[in-house]
Every structure is written in C-alpha cells, then in structure tokens.
C-alpha cells in the first residue's frame, strides 16, 4: 500500500541536496580533521527554512565554522601554489605527479571525474564535472598501503585503477583509463611519497616550513613541569643522571626520583628493569604527596631473580609518601601474560621481595590484541559506513540509490550493536579506563602511591599514567596542559611512535604497529563525554592531533624517543604540531568548559559498557549518514556570543550614563552571583 519505496525517497532526498553540494567527502583543511561538507542531512524539508536553520539539523554547522576558519588560513598558503588548477600547496610542498581523467569512486555519491595530483605531502583529487568542485585530500602519511586494482584487460567501468588504504579508516578508490599505463606514474609517485623512508626520501616534516605565532617546541619544559608539581621538595628531586641517555636510552634526560635515592641506586635499579626503564616520577599529589611512578617490568626471569637495590629503591618511593605505609604496584597486563614474560627474562614483583607492596593486575592486553581489535572495528564500521571492496566492486554497475543501500545494508544496521561488541574495541577501552580509575582511587581516596608498569613500560603504562593524571589534575585538561601531558608521558618517556604508526614505512603489516595512542585518545574522549564541562578542548582538538599523528607534516610524533629526536635535531628541522594548534586556539575550545575552582577537580568516570560508546565522530566521520557533531556546542556558542553582546551593550550603556552624569556617582555594578564563563 505504500506508494513509494524508501529507495525512491532516498533518491528524492539526494536530488534535493545536490544544490547544496553536500556530498563531498572532503578533507579540505590541512588538519583534515572534520568534514566540512558533511552537512548532507543538514538540508531540511523546507528549503526556505534551510537557509536559516543552521542549528536545526543534527549536523550543525559547528565544524563548518572550524573548516571555514581553516580554509581562510589555507588561502594564505594557496598563494604559493603552482597554478589555478593545481592543489593548494604548503611551504616546502611540491607537485610530483598529476593524472588527468581519473575517476574517484565515492562510496556515498558515486563516481566523480577529475584530476589527481600527488605532492610530497598529499594526494589531492579535484572534480572537473561538477559545479561545486568536489575535493578529496589525504596527507600521504595517512596512507597505509596502496594497491593496483584490475589490469589492462579488466572489463567493466572503473575497474582499472588504484586503491588507497588509509590509517584513518578510509579506503579510496581511483579508476584510470585503461590505456598507456595511465596509472603507472601516479602509482609510483604515491608509493615513493607515501613511504619515503622505504625509498630513501626524507619525511615531509623535514621539508615543510612555516612560521607560526607561537613556537610549539616550547610548550613542554621538563623542569618547569616538575616545578609545577612542587619538585624539588623534601621527598623528590630532579635528577640529570640520564642527560646523555646512558642509563636508559628510551627515557628523557631529566626526571624526578626520591630525594633519598643515590645515583648508584638508580643505576642498580635500571639494571634490574627491562630496557633500563627504572621507576621515576609521573605525578605527585599536591596535598597528600602520594605519587604515580612508572617503569618497566623487573627482570625476574624463570629463576625468580631478585635485586635488593631495586627493592630498596621501590621502598624509597613508598617512603616518600608519609601518608601511607603501602605501595600499590599496578601491572597493566593480565596475570598469565606477566607470568609468561618470566620465560623471556621478565616478570613481575613478588610480594615477598617487595615488602608492603601489593601487586594488582589490570588485565589490559598487549599491542597485538589491540591492533586486531581495531582492524575488526574498521571491518564493522566499514560494513555500515564505508566501501568494503566487495560492495564497491558490485557497486560499479548499479545505480546510485542501490549503491547507498549496498553501503548501508539494512542487515548490518540491524546488527550494529552486536557488531560493535564483537570487535571488543570498546571492551579494551573499558579495561584501560578501569585500570586508570583504580590508580586514581588509590592515589586520591587512599593517599597511597602507585607504581605502574607493563612489560616495557611504554605502551599500556603510558595509557594508564596519562589517563590517571588527566583524571587527577585539571591542568592536563586545558589545551596546553594536554599538550604537556602528551609530550611528557608519551613522547619523552619513549612511546615508540615510529614503530607503532610506521611513519613513511611501507610494511603495513609490521607487527610493531598498534593503535595504542589512538586508544588513549579514545579513552580521553570517553571521559570528556562523561564530564562535558571538564575539558578546555573539544573533540576537534583530539581529532586534529590524531590526524597529525599520521600526517608527517609536523615533527612532534616522529621517532621513538627523546634521544632520537635530539639526535635528528627535530626541534630545529621541523615544526611542532603545537605551533599549529596554539596559533588557532579558538578552534579547539570547548564552549562548555567551566573551570570554577573546586568544580570537578578529580574526575571519576564510570567504566561500564553502558557508558562507553563508539567514537563515531572519529571513526565514522567519512560517512554522511552518521550523526557526527554535537549541536549542543553550537547552541552554547550562540548563547555565549549573545551574552557577550549583552555585556558589551551594558558596558556601552554604562559608559554613556557615566559621561552624562560625569560628576555624580555611577550606578553600582549589577549583582553577578555566578558566572559559568571564564574569559
């Protein structure tokens, strides 16, 4: 009885939206963070209302503002670009190859014809057959692998071309003409510049130069950060024993240790810890002096070796906190894994050897499990959201509306929740959060110091200490504080970004790759959902960081340790990501941020699956059918602007009044009981 099928309706919808040019899967801005033209469903039924209904839709223009601002910025850069038709270029970016008559097979709006350019930084596609140009831009650092699809004899439209698999969950498919090896040049250039290290080329960060108002390399000063926490004090001192990275080559040059510890103690402890990563200070409670310290596993081995010096050193950490006569050692691993590590010479602290220490296993799995889980998550989201190769191959031949149905099959939609669950990604998130919460609970509620380690102390340990510090200390929830947190707990303490991300390296299936940092950022996002006012930054900030984790435009996430970065002169030869972010802070500010004193000092999020959600605005951001943005932000921003205008108006009125009755007293200020807004 229904007069129209839903597929027809979709068609109608689509036609309506065409004039809004909303189907671009762009990532126009350099940060490529948010899809400015995602406003696919932002058109409402009433065209008249559309023009003014900027907050009426689920996808508000929130990020359109962001992209618009960034676009403006990029225009300045564009002046340097080669020509009218070429892609906008950054300083130091050069076009390496151009292919005309290429078809981009968009999984959402069908094939688009245009020009594909490859630079030493990015892949840039620009349509030629549409009124509003349709642009796809991907920094080549994001590319994980590239494959040729079809051969010279392949049949069917768009069956010959290149498929690009990205680290940010996108798969891009380009179709070339089947003559004269039209894809060869572009393919080779793509290979070379996506994986420069495999082709003896420099990473783009070393060619890129741009001057920003602020130098992000100055954001983190280890000594200043330790001073902020009150070190040196009676119990803790700054040590420069590692200034030539001779004690531990994956640790920073400066760290803090118990004041009572001698250099010999440190050396002895380092000798008993995996890779010399001895316990050093991460954070100290401003009131109770309870601490979070981090290290690697002890080298216990099958024989159950002991080190009196390490035991004594751990005792010093406990003694540095007068409030408690106990120390918790949080081993991030599941117990069986910790036991298994004994066979490889590692292991865990026995409670007999470490008096007054209590060992807790946090059941967080290793990098390989996490990598698999993310791969599955991609699989699940891809089913619903993206172009699985399977459906694409079929899709070439079918019409537009059917394509939509194929990409969003109802069967997957119906199993969305169990599909998410089966990836176990969220369960891992839950365990990481729960682990961090236990640390926070011990430090905050029991005033007890906590020592955290996993195997090597640079993956799960960084997640746990980073998150615990974020929950305990509001400073790390500001934009600059968060930058400091990443610099300190991740970069300076040697999270192996080079191996985990595989910058410029073509071995996409390398076993060392793992989304450990992504998982940390996901946890941060989960906490920010539970405490919407507690963070100075918005999720656009988190996504920007993640985009540049891969992009190789900035030096921040290159290499695996402070030692390597010093050696490669990263600070001199590259630009810091924080230079970029800190010169446009307004883009990353959370309008709901509320930094009243004593308001939400310590965050205790709930680590229950009932609250842990897939981060759709990150993982599904390429899919126009998913709700991406939070209209609450838009509305709050409107209200803040309105308030500002009222304040201005009041100020003007008062000034007028004052000038009118300049000799008499001005009226008293209006009572302002509470202002949630901090200027």
């Amino acid at each position: 009885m229904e007069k129209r099928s839903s597929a027809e309706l979709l068609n109608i919808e689509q036609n309506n939206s065409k004039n809004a040019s909303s189907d671009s899967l762009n990532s126009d801005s350099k940060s490529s963070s948010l899809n400015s033209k995602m406003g696919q469903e932002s058109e409402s039924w009433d065209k008249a209302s559309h023009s003014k209904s900027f907050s009426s839709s689920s996808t508000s223009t929130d990020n359109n503002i962001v992209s618009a601002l960034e676009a403006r910025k990029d225009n300045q850069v564009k002046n340097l670009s080669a020509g009218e038709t070429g892609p906008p270029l950054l300083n130091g970016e050069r076009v390496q190859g151009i292919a005309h008559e290429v078809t981009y097979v968009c999984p959402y709006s069908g094939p688009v014809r245009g020009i594909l350019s490859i630079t030493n930084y990015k892949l840039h596609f620009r349509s030629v057959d549409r009124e509003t140009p349709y642009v796809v831009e991907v920094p080549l650092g994001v590319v994980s692998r590239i494959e040729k699809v079809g051969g010279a004899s392949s049949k069917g439209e768009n069956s010959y071309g290149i498929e690009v698999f990205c680290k940010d969950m996108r798969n891009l498919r380009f179709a070339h003409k089947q003559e004269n090896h039209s894809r060869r040049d572009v393919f080779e250039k793509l290979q070379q510049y996506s994986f420069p290290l495999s082709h003896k080329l420099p990473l783009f960060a070393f060619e890129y130069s741009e001057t920003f108002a602020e130098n992000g390399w100055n954001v983190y000063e280890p000594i200043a950060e330790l001073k902020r926490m009150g070190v040196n004090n009676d119990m803790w001192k700054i040590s420069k024993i590692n200034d030539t990275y001779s004690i531990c080559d994956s640790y920073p040059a400066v760290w803090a240790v118990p004041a009572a510890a001698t250099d010999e103690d440190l050396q002895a402890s380092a000798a008993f810890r995996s890779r010399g990563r001895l316990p050093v200070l991460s954070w100290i409670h401003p009131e109770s002096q309870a601490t979070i310290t981090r290290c690697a596993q002890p080298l216990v081995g099958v024989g159950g070796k002991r080190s009196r010096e390490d035991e004594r050193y751990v005792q010093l950490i406990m003694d540095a906190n007068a409030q408690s006569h106990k120390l918790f050692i949080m081993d991030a691993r599941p117990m069986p894994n910790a036991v298994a590590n004994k066979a490889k010479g590692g292991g865990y602290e026995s409670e007999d050897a470490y008096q007054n220490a209590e060992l807790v296993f946090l059941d967080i799995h290793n990098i390989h499990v996490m990598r698999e889980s993310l791969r599955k998550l991609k699989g699940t989201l891809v089913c619903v959201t993206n172009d699985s190769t399977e459906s694409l191959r079929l899709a070439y031949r079918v019409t537009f509306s059917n394509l939509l149905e194929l990409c969003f099959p109802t069967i997957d939609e119906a199993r969305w929740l169990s599909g998410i669950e089966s990836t176990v990604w969220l369960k891992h998130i839950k365990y990481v959060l729960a682990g961090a919460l236990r640390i926070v609970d011990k430090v905050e509620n029991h005033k007890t110091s906590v020592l955290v380690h996993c195997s090597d102390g640079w993956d799960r340990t960084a997640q746990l200490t980073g998150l615990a510090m974020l929950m305990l200390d509001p400073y790390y929830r500001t934009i600059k504080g968060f930058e400091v947190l990443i610099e300190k707990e991740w970069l300076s303490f040697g999270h192996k970004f080079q191996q985990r991300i595989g910058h410029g390296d073509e071995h996409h299936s390398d076993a060392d790759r793992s989304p450990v940092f992504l998982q940390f950022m996901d946890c941060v996002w989960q906490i920010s959902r539970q405490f919407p006012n507690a963070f100075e930054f918005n999720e656009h900030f988190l996504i920007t960081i993640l985009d540049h984790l891969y992009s190789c435009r900035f030096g921040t996430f290159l290499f695996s340790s402070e030692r390597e970065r010093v050696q490669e002169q990263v600070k001199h030869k590259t630009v810091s990501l924080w230079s970029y972010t800190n010169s446009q802070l307004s883009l990353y500010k959370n309008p709901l941020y509320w930094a009243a004193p004593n308001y939400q000092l310590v965050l205790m999020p709930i680590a229950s699956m009932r609250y842990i959600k897939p981060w759709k605005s990150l993982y599904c951001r390429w899919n126009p059918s998913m709700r991406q943005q939070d209209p609450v932000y838009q509305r709050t921003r409107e209200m803040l602007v309105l308030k500002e205008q009222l304040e201005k108006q009041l100020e003007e009125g008062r000034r007028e009044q004052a000038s009118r009755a300049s000799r008499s007293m001005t009226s008293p200020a209006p009572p302002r009981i509470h202002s949630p807004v901090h200027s």
Partner: protein
Amino acid sequence: MESKSCNNFISYVELEEHEMQPLGSSRRNSLSENNIKLLPGESFVTKAQNVLMFSPVSDLNQGTSGILSVTNFKLTFVTTDETNGDDVARQQNHLYGYMDTCLTNIEDIYVTVGDKKRKLLPGNIVPSKNLRTWSFSFKFSPIGDGKNLLQALLHYAFPNKHDLLFGYDYQEAYYSSLDKAVRLFRDISDWHNELERTIRNEKFRKFWRLSTVNVDFKLCRSLSRYIIIPASITDSQLIDAAKRFQGNRPPIWSWSNARGAVLVKMPELLPLVTNRIQENIMFENVRKSHPQKMPPVVLELNKGISVKLIAIAFSKFASLCSPENIRQFWLQDNNFYSLVENTKWLKYVSYCLQKAVEACEHLHLGLSVILQEGAGTDLCCIVSSLVQLLLDPYFRTINGFQSLLQKEWVAGGHPFCDRLGHICKRTSEKSPLLLLYLDCVWQLSQQFPAEFEFTETYLTTLWDAAHVSIFDTFIFNCEKERVAAATDPDRPLVLRSVWDWREQFNEQDILLFDNPLYNPHEADSKEKRVIKPLYNVANLELWNQCYFRWIPTLEIHNGGQNHIELYARLLRNDMNQLKMSINGNCCSPTDKSNSCSVQMNIDSFYPFSNRKSGNIVSTPIMNSSILATKSLLEAQSLITATD
C-alpha cells in the same frame, strides 16, 4: 523517629520557598498514623516492623532497617535512620516520598528463597513499572508481619476494578492551577481552534469539518466527543463506515500542513470484513479533501511490530535495566551491547522514528498521509505525534507537547488503563507504548537540543506521573470512561490533570523542566522549523536518566550530561541579569519574589540521584519560568536592533 516530609529537604529549597509552598507539606502532614504521612482519603492498611531494605543493585548484604507499610495508595518505608532524607538533592513529590512507591507503580512482586525467585506469590522483591526495584527482607520482622503485608500488598496493588484506584478515594479539594494554554481537547473549541491554527487557508479548511456525531459516544466508544473528518462524508455515511472498522472507529484527522496535506489516523478493517469498499470510500474521501485531489499515501504500522512485541521487548529491556545485584550488573556489562540489541527496544524506537520521517517526507511533497494500524489507538498515536513534533514547532513547547498528548493520545483513545496495567484484568494488553513514544521524543531532544522547550527530566517525570493513580489523564482507556467516572452520581471522580504540575512539585522542581538551551525562534516564525532526525539504531542512544537512574553504580559523581544543562541554565541566568541591568532595573537575585536556586554539585542522575551528596552547593537564580523565554527573546531582538 523521623518520618519524611518535604520539609526535610531544607538545604535544597530556600526558606522563603517553604513559606510559599505550604500546600505539599501540610497535605502530607494532615494525617499521621504509625508515623507515616497520609493524604486525605488515604488509609493505613498494615505494616511490618524491622524490615530490612537493601540498597538497589548491591550485593544484598547490607540493608536499612525500618517499618514497611501499605496504605490504599502506596507502599512506604519509614526508616529509623535519622539522617535519611537529609541533605538529599532530588525531586520531591508532594504526594509521595522517595521511599514510597504508588501501588499502581508496582509491576510484580517476587519472593526469593535462597537463589530461587518466585513470582507474585508473597514476595519480597518489588519491581516498579518505572524500573526501580525494591528489595526487602523480613528476616528480622515479627513472625506473621511479612505475610500480612504481602497479602495486603497483593490485594491493594493489583485492583480488579477501576474504582478501586486511589484517585476515587483521594479527598483533597482540587483547585486547578492548570495553564489555560494546555488544551485538553475535551471541548469543541479546542478542536475548532486546532483546525484553524493548522489550516490557515480557508479554502483548504473547507475540505474538513468538525463533527459532533460522537458527542454521546454512539459512533465509537474510544473516540472523543468531537472529531474532524473529510467534509465530503455525511455523519450517517460515517456511522455506516465505522461498523466495518476495528473498534468501530472511522478514520479521523490529526493535522494539516500549510499546503493542505493532512495526517489521518485510520484503523484496519475488521478481520471478518473481506469487502474493502468502505476502506476505499474512506481513501477516496481523504483524496477529495486534498486541495489538488491527490491520492493519499498509506503507511501501515503493523509490519514487524505490535503492541505485544513492544511489551516483550520492554520486559527484556527492563530486566537489563534493573539487575538484581551487583554481580549480575557486571555480568551484563560484559556483553551489554548485544543484550540491548536482543531486546529489540531500540529497534522499535528506530521503527517509530523512521515511519514518522517517512510520513514527513510525503507531507513535505504535498501528499496526505494515512497511518493505519489495528484499532488506530497505539502505534498510530506514536507516529502521528512524532510527525507533528517534527513538523510543527508549537508542539515542541511544553504546553504544545501536553496539548499534543491530549489530542493524539487522550482524546485519540489510547487505552492507557490497559497499556499501563492499572487494573488487573486478563483481557487487557499491557504494553509501554507511552514510554516508547517518550523515548522517541528523547532521541529527538538529543539530536536537536535547542528545539524543545522541555528537558529530559520533564520526560522522565512524565513517565513517573503516568503511574500515579491520582490524575485522570492516564488512568482511563477513553474519554467515554472518563466522562462516566466524573459524572457518576454516587461517587464522582474529581478530574485532576497531570499537567497541573504544581499538584506534585514545587517551583524549584518545575524549573528543571525548562530546557535552558531552547531557542524558540519566534523572530522568524513565518516558516515552520522542521527537524529531521536520524533514525537508524547506530544514531540512537540509551536514555540513561530514565533507565539507569536506579542503579547507583552508574551514577557519575559530579558529572554527566546534565552538567550541560546546568551550565546553560547559569549562562541563561547571566543573560537575564544582564538584560535586566540594561533595562535599568536592578534585580537582586536575593529578591524573594522570583528567586529559585540551582544546585551546583550535581551527580549524573540529578534530580533522581541515589547518592546523598555531602554538602550541597547551590546558587540562587531568577525564576526563569517568567523570564526564560521572553527575556531571551527580547534580548535577542535588542541585539538585532542595535545591528
């Protein structure tokens, strides 16, 4: 011995407020027997001493000791613990306390012996319809107390006759303070006005007429006295046609858009009627009433969904939301996503939203839409209400929303008494259609936070209120029953509308119904602001406040989404103050006449918090019930004026 009354929650409300609100407290204090506060007309039945009440979703080891009593209105637990009730920032109801539950709210009673759980027979676990579960132990009670109490509970909580509901016994005189802007659709004028409001174009309006054929409920018992039907049908034709349809109901008009396309609710033909002529005649009449005589689109609402399936889904979902103990809670947590999926609850939410979006698409193209389902009193109510919420901003105001519920549900003959299970009858089909609707509305309010005048607290409170038998709104199956009860010569029922919120709450709590993010957009009201939700399950969320609020483990301390609302409320207050200052009248927030206070350190289920907050920090703000929308509007126009 301490008994609870509103006055104990002092820190929450300022003193002046109390003096202004003697109503609630005096009422509850009026009669007191065995240390429980009784309402006028409420009578004490029995009690059990030394009962242990377990905290919800705990390990069932620790409990609070107290006296559990049954009256003809509620189950009430009075604790000997002096501190209980103090310093708790949560919604206070004038009619019953936090440790009370209305008998009509009792879903089931279970008895547990060891690990086994038996239903209905004398029991000690009492799940509520609003998902709260009460667990008691009679281990330390005098022998016989528990048994007596359970027998009384079984008797009073599951009445088999309508006039056994407490509403009939309630003696309190009623002076309505109901806002006139809430249209109950009991009078002809409301229908008349609605027709004029929606169809501005007189030419279009002529295609429809207000019929009084059902004024004595002779046409159909489940319809209101007044109905709007195609002008081309005569009353006698309608009577003829109605006989062929389920529930003896003809198709009726719900709403029209500016282009004259209408939304019609229509039942299915009776199962035995094979001749579809009458149905086609009705289709034809709807077509004739279209300005361009376009044929209507029929949306069937009976595929893969039914009243019964919704009930099954909800009972699964409810058990997921009320785990018996903490162990079960964490077990469920391991595969919560697939457990939620298996209940199909979100699938049905998605279904309703999808149908509403479909209907909107047709209406937007200028086509009339006929919603067709069983007797046209269940899913039709949900979908037609949703369509109107999406297309007509008026219904997104509080008064509009209440009027819509009156029009589509109460006047539309949704069998509330059966669906909410007020009466224990074998024939009645219990199913939380109303909750499904409220969930859909909540989803909309999440996707469009600035488009609705009300908050989720309002929606949750509304669901709670549906189980209070004092108000007539949700206790009848149809208008005919309501009229009969109200005009009963022996024992007329006083009709109290649930929309008269002051009967239950003080200004402080009513303030929390106002959505501070609401943007009324009056300035550009020429075009109706349409909203278009995303409806697939991937874009839906679980309504934490309503479903999880009785699980203390899930309460985020000093956090949660409601902090957005709190922040916006203070922001709006700042704006109001600025506006007042600009206009030259300095309004001190300590001004008694219009001050309320906002609690600052709230937990995520506020105002339904489980936890006792240690020290409550609150900030006075201006009573925004007057100022909230108007002043902001003026502020907005001021700004545009200065431009």
